[in-house]
């Protein structure tokens, strides 16, 4: 558990350093995600302890949104002033994105044997 957490933090740190020094247009944790993915690909499997720690972190991903979400309080002025553009953009863009992505994938992806099985057993 400890070594898995150390590895994840090391990947994040490496990602932060690499993006900073190379001036990459990617946030440090995203570079860390790519580094961890490359390490997993080299190893050929997800070690059990890393899987457990990662699943634990991602299972509570929603909770991690809360402190930043409470930040709405600190930016009420900006939201109040721009409430109409924000509402139109968020509603319109979310619906457009779902429609475009869903329609394209359903037209382009060929049905696969594995995808026709009962989803519960997938």
């Amino acid at each position, binding site marked *: 558990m400890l070594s898995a957490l150390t590895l994840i933090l090391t990947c994040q740190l490496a990602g932060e350093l690499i993006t900073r020094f190379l001036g990459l247009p990617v946030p440090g944790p995203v570079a860390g995600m790519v580094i*961890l993915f490359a390490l997993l690909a080299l190893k050929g499997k997800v070690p059990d302890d890393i899987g457990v720690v990662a699943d634990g972190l991602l299972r509570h991903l929603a909770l991690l949104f809360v402190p930043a979400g409470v930040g709405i309080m600190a930016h009420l002025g900006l939201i109040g002033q721009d409430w109409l553009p924000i509402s139109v953009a968020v509603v319109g863009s979310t*619906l457009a994105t779902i429609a475009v992505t869903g329609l394209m994938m359903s037209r382009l992806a060929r049905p696969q044997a594995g995808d026709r099985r009962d989803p519960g057993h997938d």
Partner: protein
Amino acid sequence: MTDITPMADISDIWVYLSASPLLFLTLTLAAFQAGTWLYTRSGHKPFLNPVLTAVILMVGLLTLSGTTYETYFEGAQFVHFLLGPATVALAIPLYRQFDRVRRSALALIASLICGSLTAMATAVLLGWLMGASRETLMSLAPKSVTAPVAMGITEQLGGLPSLTAVMVILTGILGAVLGPPLLTLIGVRDGRARGLAMGTASHGIGTARALETSELAGAFSGLAMGLNALATAILLPLLWRLFF
């Protein structure tokens, strides 16, 4: 803390507790637990999303007690810090789904990139047409991406990460509520396509909703969440420099 005696009145205790990060860390977890309880009790009503409930509860509490966001964040930062490691951990579901990526790779990548570009372009375009400020546009642009990545991108553009998180949460909840009926309406029944759409548009909250429908949709949604984070993180700063 020698000034706390058994006789101390409630305001003394409040002053003592609010000076420590423990109180707001605990309240953040408790508010989220309350939100989760309400969501479960309601039979998973999308509009009773636990994040939304927790944020409303905490904002109400901070407003009533006259607490600043800075004071609150001294406690909440311990939760907030985990956004970084959680982003790195997205490599694991991405790796586990690698076989599925390969089997429908071309369709998946084409749909994802179109979806990702649609999310960025329509958000900025609609916001700009409606007269949003530049700072708001920076927070709107990555709104379909999972919070840790979206906040990182906005920070890099020079916008407000916490405002982005609010957009991200609004987008997530909206997609979770309206996504499934919309997909049914336009005739998208393939579980892979439904999952990919939910994850591309509405990240983690959309993924949670997709998982309720089927494991297949959930798997593709989680995958789309990770890939759209990657695509937006690479494309958005480049496109932003090109247009602004």
